[in-house]
């Protein structure tokens, strides 16, 4: 039974994404859903790093952006034709393709780059940060600052990155016209299937010994050290995987949205990723993905009906989740069962986990909370 529920939920999600949604949604809505699926892929990575690993990654926009820009560079070069120069470079640049763009003419280099560029950046960052035992709020602030720096860097390089406008106006995606409705459906299926495959892989990772070890590092980093492991390495692996997932999400976002710009990769979107994860339930397998889709969906439909209302709604929702549903939406079923089984308050609070003893390890997840609570405030600025 315990094993069956996640499997059923997974199949339900797969059915909804692959059968139900294409059948009932208009092309426009389906295109929106594909965009949300790319956010969900990022969210799965955050679920791993934050929910399981206790690392509040407030800067996934950096890796999302790296994956997205690699893909966008390839699509721009592809549109320009062999040896051609992307259109915006003729306007703002020196009319030549910079050397570091050239490798991405090749589709294979591009696909490798989508995985490797975020992975290498995350490895370098992770080694610098985790070996020095930077954690908690400091890690969160650091990761956010890096994202902000990345966005500023992009804006400053108008001739080579498109600056504030980003890269847009794509015509084809690996030879397929991006505006063709049939191709857009194909991209939707591609994105949904990649999301489902990643979720299946994540399920295996959570059940593996590495998954157990990661939870152990989250709950007692020092203790793990005293068991003969270097926790920095374990955290590094989780961080790199989450960065790669963010890169994949970013890469898929480009053909769907038709644009990637600094405002898609900066601080605000990075926080929005985390909010979806928190609402879905960061420690669960499906929670982050479902939460990310649900929050993005709510944002779109609410913004359509009540423009400028979304920020308040987002803030309110976040407060409710923090106060009443610390485990996110994923906590609802367990809560419902508990309410049904015990209409009266329980006489013996036996299965309630004991409050954690005064150990240094509990500080990390707790320190993460205030950092996220401040998120709606920043989100409201958007």
């Amino acid at each position: 039974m315990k094993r069956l529920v996640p499997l059923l939920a997974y199949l339900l999600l797969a059915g909804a994404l692959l059968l139900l949604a294409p059948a009932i949604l208009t092309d426009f809505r389906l295109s929106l859903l594909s965009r949300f699926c790319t956010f969900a892929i990022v969210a799965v990575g955050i679920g791993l790093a934050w929910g399981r690993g206790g690392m509040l990654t407030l800067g996934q926009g950096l890796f999302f952006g790296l994956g997205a820009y690699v893909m966008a560079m390839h699509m721009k070069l592809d549109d320009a034709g062999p040896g051609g120069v992307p259109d915006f470079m003729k306007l703002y640049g020196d009319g030549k393709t910079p050397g570091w763009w050239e490798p991405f003419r090749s589709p294979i280099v591009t696909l490798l780059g989508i995985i490797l560029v975020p992975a290498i950046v995350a490895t370098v960052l992770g080694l610098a940060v985790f070996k020095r035992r930077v954690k908690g709020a400091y890690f969160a602030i650091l990761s956010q600052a890096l994202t902000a720096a990345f966005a500023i860097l992009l804006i400053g390089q108008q001739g080579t990155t498109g600056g504030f406008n980003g890269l847009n106006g794509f015509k084809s995606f690996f030879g397929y016209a991006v505006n063709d409705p049939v191709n857009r459906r194909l991209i939707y299926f591609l994105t949904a299937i990649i999301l489902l495959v990643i979720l299946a892989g994540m399920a295996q990772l959570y059940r593996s010994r590495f998954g157990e070890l990661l939870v152990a590092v989250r709950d007692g980093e020092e203790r793990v050290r005293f068991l003969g492991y270097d926790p920095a390495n374990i955290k590094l692996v989780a961080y790199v995987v989450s960065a790669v997932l963010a890169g994949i999400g970013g890469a898929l976002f480009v053909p769907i949205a038709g644009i990637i710009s600094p405002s898609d990769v900066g601080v605000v979107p990075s926080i929005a990723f985390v909010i979806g994860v928190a609402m879905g339930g960061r420690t669960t397998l499906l929670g982050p993905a479902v939460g990310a889709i649900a929050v993005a969906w709510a944002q779109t439909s609410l913004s359509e009906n009540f423009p400028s209302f979304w920020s308040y709604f987002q803030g309110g929702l976040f407060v409710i989740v923090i106060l009443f549903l610390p485990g996110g939406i994923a906590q609802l079923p367990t809560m419902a069962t508990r309410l049904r089984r015990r209409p009266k308050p329980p006489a013996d609070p036996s299965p309630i986990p004991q409050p954690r003893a005064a150990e240094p390890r509990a500080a990390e997840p707790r320190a993460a909370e205030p950092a996220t609570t401040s998120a709606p405030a920043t989100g409201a600025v958007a």
Partner: protein
Amino acid sequence: MSTDYLEITKLHVEFDGFVAIDSVDLTVLQGDLRFLIGPNGAGKTTLIDAITGLVPATGSARYGSTELLGRKVHQIVRMGVGRTFQTASVFEDLTVLQNLDIAAGFGRSPLSLLRKRRSVPPEVEKALTAVGLESLALRPAGVLAHGQKQWLEIGMLLVQDARVMLLDEPVAGMSHEEREETGHLLKRIGADRTVIVIEHDMDFVRTFADSVTVMHGGRVLAEGTVAEIQADERVQEVYLGRSVAAITEEVG
């Protein structure tokens, strides 16, 4: 019996000018269940912290032919030196079995880490039996009673086959029966290992110690069998504030 033993010479720990451990010499042989006693602030826990790499120290702490000082925490553990903490620090969200399995795993290859745990490794099975937690193997460690958590911690050292075990107040907060059981457990595992136990409870020390080292103010005050320690006037003075002779004089 092998000749490996823990040898500490001229160990010195200083925090911002405060000398916590002042040139301590200590040798503990294998099979000798050594208790470390002393008033609060004597430097007992700091001594263990220094040996296990948690605080920087000068001097020497060798096990067999290897120097432990100056190595990283996880490297020292990999050399077979394990410890427990005053507050039991097990992974509360993981089951007893998972806790032990993680403890057993520092030598695993990255590939095997990606696989699910399919069976219970034999060393985990043995440790479960040794600490008597078989029936609780699948319960989350967070629901264990205080004493059981301490046993689980000791079990985690057993799984690692730690040759040197440094136990920081393992019986604090235990009931009388739990203490008895823990004492016998220590006797069993101490037979072929080098074990140092920090303890305050003198009854417990009397019953189970093979030898005792008394620390005071960062120094070793006395060392010997329980009887020798009890007869030592300096020890009495440290514990009672003045010597027994002085008290008898007063009373008489």
